[in-house]
């Protein structure tokens, strides 16, 4: 295949018509492996384009102010990324993360940084710097209900694209109708009710109601695409064996 065309296909934001593993080229599969991280919730993974949180891209989570209930969705990913010797940054968090709870979940709190910017400019600067730094595995940034320009959010998206971290921007649900360059936008309207507002390369306007029974597994499940890829490699191996017999 043409090299330039392959590069375009490899981009995680390129939409492929049919998502059957046989339709995806091997190199794209290989490329996309490691570009996403399972959320730890099967029902959410199933609707996400990369079968998990896209890494190296900005994700927006909208929720009503003072609710702050979405961290449960991120705990499995946070725990997984906590194994890396990198910072997990909370920028302008609404409250203090309860350290004993994090410890009980196996999260090393020494890797957590809490940053409290004084104003909007500092918030944007801090978020951009942490996204550009290779020393962070996770960046959670809480935006206030002020207006943020498209260009400001684009800068953050470009900064996130330079790295491989999980980058989440928490925003007030009143701002959900504004334009933004984020790869994924989720709305958490009620308890454990997640709506995919936008997802690059995937389906949108899907609502998932997580039941109280559906808790994240301690070990992150292998994402569907990784499973498909392993199936594909099995088929290929079989094919090579068959050919060698001939």
């Amino acid at each position, binding site marked *: 295949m043409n090299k330039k065309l392959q590069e375009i296909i490899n981009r995680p934001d390129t939409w492929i018509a049919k998502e059957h593993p046989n339709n995806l080229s091997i190199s794209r599969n290989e490329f996309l492996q490691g570009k996403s991280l399972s959320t730890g919730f099967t029902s959410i993974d199933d609707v996400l384009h990369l079968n998990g949180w896209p890494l190296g891209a900005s994700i927006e989570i909208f929720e*009503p102010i*003072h609710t702050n209930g979405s961290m*449960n969705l991120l705990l499995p990913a946070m725990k997984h990324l906590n194994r890396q010797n990198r910072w997990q940054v909370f920028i302008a968090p609404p409250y203090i993360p*309860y*350290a004993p709870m994090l*410890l009980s979940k196996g999260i090393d709190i*020494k890797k957590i940084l809490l940053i409290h910017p004084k104003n909007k400019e*500092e918030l944007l600067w801090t978020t951009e710097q942490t996204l550009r*730094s290779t020393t962070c595995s996770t960046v959670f940034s809480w935006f206030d209900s002020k207006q943020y320009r498209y260009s400001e959010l684009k800068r953050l998206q470009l900064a996130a694209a330079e790295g491989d971290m999980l980058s989440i921007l928490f925003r007030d649900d009143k701002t959900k109708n504004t334009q933004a360059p984020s790869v994924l936008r989720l709305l958490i309207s009620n*308890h454990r009710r997640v709506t995919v507002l936008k997802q690059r390369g995937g389906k949108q306007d899907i609502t998932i109601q997580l039941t109280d029974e559906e808790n994240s597994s301690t070990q992150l499940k292998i994402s569907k695409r990784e499973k498909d890829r392993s199936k594909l490699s099995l088929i290929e191996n079989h094919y090579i064996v068959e050919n060698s017999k001939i």
Partner: protein
Amino acid sequence: MTLWLCLRFEKLSLQSLSLEEDIPIAIFQDQLIISMNYCAFFSGIKIGLLVEEAQELNSNLQLLKRNKSAEKKCLEKLCLWAYSITPKLNIWHDSLRLEIGTCLKIFGGLNSLLSKVDKEITNIGYDVRYGIAPNAAACWLVSHGEKKFNVALSSNLKECISPLPLNLLSEFSSTTKKLSVTGLTTFGDIIRIPNKALKIRFDERFVEFLEYVLGQRKELFNNYYPKDTFLEQYRFSYGVQNKKEIIPAIEYLLESFNIFLTKMQVCTNEICWLFHSIDGYVEELTINSASCFANYKTWRRLTLIKLENQTFKTTVEGLFLQCQDLTPISFRNFDFLYQSEPQEPKEDLLDQLRNRLHSKNIRRLGCCDEHVPEHAVYTADDDCGLLSDIKNEFNERPFWLLPEPQPLKYYEKKLYWKDELNLISGPERIEDNWWSKPISRDYYIAKNLHGNHYWVFRNRRTRRWYIQGIFS
């Protein structure tokens, strides 16, 4: 074997002020020309000319007054450079004297050492003459020989210094004048006279010096020791207010600082910039780094980050870089077998954030082995003393803890926090601090109409309700 190398900077008075060669420059002292660059030399200017005569020869000639403090600073800088060759050295007149006999093996012999020294000095941009002799006093005299490299061993030392004029010894000018009256003008003339006869007639210090030169007496050597602090300045020739114009000066001083750190094998985690304005006002800018291994790039980046927020009340005339807290480098071992990918140090991000935001706005999370929730969590601006290895068996605990418990509205046997709350689990009793201010609470998990969960408690003493945490 002791062997001394003298590096004599014959154009020090000129090159300490300017290394420019494209325009004619001459240095004067007492209205007489004492040094000039090649451009000025080719226009006919010579040492000993009067300033007016030199100006007549070349109207474009730039005349600079000799600056002895600039020469001294220049030699001190060169000492720092030479300190990496040998620890035994000092400044003598316009020269550096280095004991090289003990370090010849390290550099692979005399020729290899001289070629290294010459290459580095040429790169810096100075004109230098070399003198090699068995003692410190003689090597300086030998450097006045006709060649660029002049070598005198014990066997031919007298032969080498004999043709040199006595008036080289400016500190004994009265003695050399007396000698010249009697017809003794060179070292050769003096060496022939017995020491006893010289001692009776001339200055004892002068005779002592001769004994040092000839190796008949051991010289008390004042060794150079590098300073344990760093202070260097950059003077702008005009007032500067635009920050962009200050950046080249910052880079220049940081380069010099970096050389200092390398040569001295020291490190620091704090540097201080002093901006001197024309009216004498000094503004200070302190840069901190969490890592002691900060290098030129890091200091430059941190300085520029902090400079963004700096405002100057008046124009800046001079910039000083100061560092007082230096610690010896502790060496790190690298793994030979496993080579991990080079990664940015984690402290770099902290440095960046602390220099732009205030360090109190960057917090680390800590945990205490306490029953009362608000006492179990704390934040600090560094990780000193942070505990994180406490393992407890917990019931359900919230993700977020409010900085302080907030009172809940209790109306008609119902709890309200923005919405109505219903208790769905509990109570879990937490009692503590009985020895001072007793705490007794019953904790519950409450749920609002939207399904969000909260951690609330009832103070058993006051019978009031509070919210303390938010579940995710």
